[in-house]
């Protein structure tokens, strides 16, 4: 193995490269001062980064993290229970807010459409006319004219 093939493998973690490559790398490091120096630098950098991350993590206050996570998990979940239908519906709505809002508006839009449909359907025209006549002892007939209905009563009514 030459330096060009060895450099990318420097700093690899155990198991990241196959045993054959590992053996070739170790053989190369045994004979190459330059690559050993690079490996030392990589390992030193890893230590610096790790220590830096630990310092940064220590500065963060994670005291309430566990409680916060547990609070967001439904009690039924950490007791090992499956949520009920209502719980699943709430979880679904919580994660699909736009769909939930649209679902809530659907009845309103349906009511509006129905209102507009009825509003237009009851306009002028034969469909809007409705006549019921009851007479105790006289006959009644209804004539439909262009201006409206005529209700006549009598023995045989009086239409022409």
């Amino acid at each position: 193995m030459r330096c060009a093939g060895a450099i990318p493998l420097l700093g690899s973690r155990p198991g990241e490269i196959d045993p054959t490559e590992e053996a070739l790398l170790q053989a190369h490091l045994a004979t190459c001062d330059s690559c050993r120096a690079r490996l030392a630098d990589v390992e030193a950098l890893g230590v610096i980064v790790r220590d830096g991350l630990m310092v940064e993590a220590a500065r963060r206050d994670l005291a309430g993290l566990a409680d916060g996570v547990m609070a967001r998990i439904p009690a039924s979940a950490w007791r090992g229970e499956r949520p009920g239908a209502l719980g699943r519906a709430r979880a679904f709505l919580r994660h699909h807010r736009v769909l939930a809002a649209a679902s809530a508006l659907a009845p309103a839009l349906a009511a509006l459409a129905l209102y507009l449909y009825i509003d237009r359907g009851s306009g002028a025209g034969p469909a809007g006319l409705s006549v019921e006549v009851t007479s105790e002892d006289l006959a009644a007939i209804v004539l439909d004219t262009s201006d409206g209905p005529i209700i006549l009563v009598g023995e045989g009514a009086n239409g022409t």
Partner: protein
Amino acid sequence: MRSTWTAAWAAVVLLACLPARAADAPVPVRIRVLQGFRQGTPGLPPGLEDLKAQLSATAYVRWEQAEEVKVSLAPGKSVAVSLPGGRAVSVLLVESKSGAATFEVSAPDSRTRSRVTVPPGKRIVQQVSAEQGGSAWFVTIKASG
């Protein structure tokens, strides 16, 4: 999220109330009392020309207007219209939706009751008395709202 639900339900309530508000509004109603005769010179007196299409469909050829009432009726309210001889006809506005009005007319003299829904601009002509001596009484009802 809560505000979205609140807005949605507010829209539902508002839409549910819209037809109710329109249905409760008072409606101007014009009622005329007419007497029709089988005999006489055919024709309509001044002021009754607008009734020609309907009145000419009956067997009565001469017409006279006895009374005219203009009233604003709210749904569920009625007005009594007098006929000669101390008789009266009751006109009840049952409901009004988008200009189409439903009236219930009770005529004790002919023991007749009608319930009629007319589209906007249409008029009801109803005979409210049995024919006597070749004449009979009528009422015309038109909602102008």
